[in-house]
């Protein structure tokens, strides 16, 4: 029978490199916490009662994710055009393998992909996170309205398409660290000042003697 008692990170982690008193961190169910962290940055920590870190993670990661979505879009071409799923011939969007770790915020991209695969127009009547058209022609006469081709997106958004891609990829990769933190607690940090601290303590003891 599996043990349902709440878990704590073992061995005890250090609260601070300057304060060497170990502190127990209640991880509750680490698998559930990791899953919640995968759904939304900070949600796993909120479940564990680590509220400050939950807020820090959520604000930090969602800020750069939303900034990326804003950068790679406009009212003309649609918003969040750098976040989309596409594994078609001629447009293998491998960047999404990094972006997807943000969790639910990239769900619209998955829904748009599934909708697009069945040959329908983009969902919600907008090209938000919708995969672009694929065109073999440099100047496709059909490429005059959203969702546009990748070529047109790059042309109209200039460098902001790539900047948005980098921002959203970083958000996804950083949430990977957050998922591990929710699962196993903070990495035990052996500060470089440990030996200095011990040397200072040794010096104090010698002076006292």
């Amino acid at each position: 029978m599996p043990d349902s008692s709440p878990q704590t990170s073992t061995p005890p982690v250090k609260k601070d490199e300057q304060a060497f008193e170990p502190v127990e961190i209640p991880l509750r169910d680490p698998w559930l916490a990791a899953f919640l962290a995968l759904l939304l940055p900070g949600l796993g920590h909120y479940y564990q009662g680590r509220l400050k870190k939950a807020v820090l993670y959520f604000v930090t990661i969602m800020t750069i994710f939303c900034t990326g979505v804003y950068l790679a879009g406009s009212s003309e071409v649609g918003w969040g055009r750098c976040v989309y799923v596409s594994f078609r011939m001629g447009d293998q969007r491998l960047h999404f393998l990094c972006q997807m770790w943000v969790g639910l915020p990239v769900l619209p991209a998955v829904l748009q992909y599934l909708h697009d695969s069945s040959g329908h127009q983009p969902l919600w009547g907008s090209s938000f996170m919708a995969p672009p058209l694929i065109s073999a022609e440099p100047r496709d006469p059909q490429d005059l309205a959203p969702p546009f081709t990748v070529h047109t997106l790059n042309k109209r958004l200039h460098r902001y398409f790539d900047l948005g891609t980098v921002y959203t990829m970083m958000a996804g990769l950083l949430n990977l660290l957050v998922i591990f933190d929710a699962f196993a607690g903070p990495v035990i940090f052996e500060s470089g000042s440990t030996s200095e601290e011990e040397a200072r303590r040794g010096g104090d003891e010698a002076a006292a003697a």
Partner: protein
Amino acid sequence: MLGFEWERIWTNDLWFAVPLIVAMSLVYAATRHEDLGAIFRHAVRVARWIVLFLVVLWGLLFLMSWFQ
């Protein structure tokens, strides 16, 4: 007139790196500590290292372009 072009500094695309450096430093530091004070102190150190790395990289590229 050869003046320092402030306009080019404020409109430089390198400013887009600042939010990323801040986010990376904070998240990385937060995976090493529980205490917010320790997280912020560690984040400052990490950010310093990232900026130093970028400056060294910029210097190398600048030298390479100089001898091109």
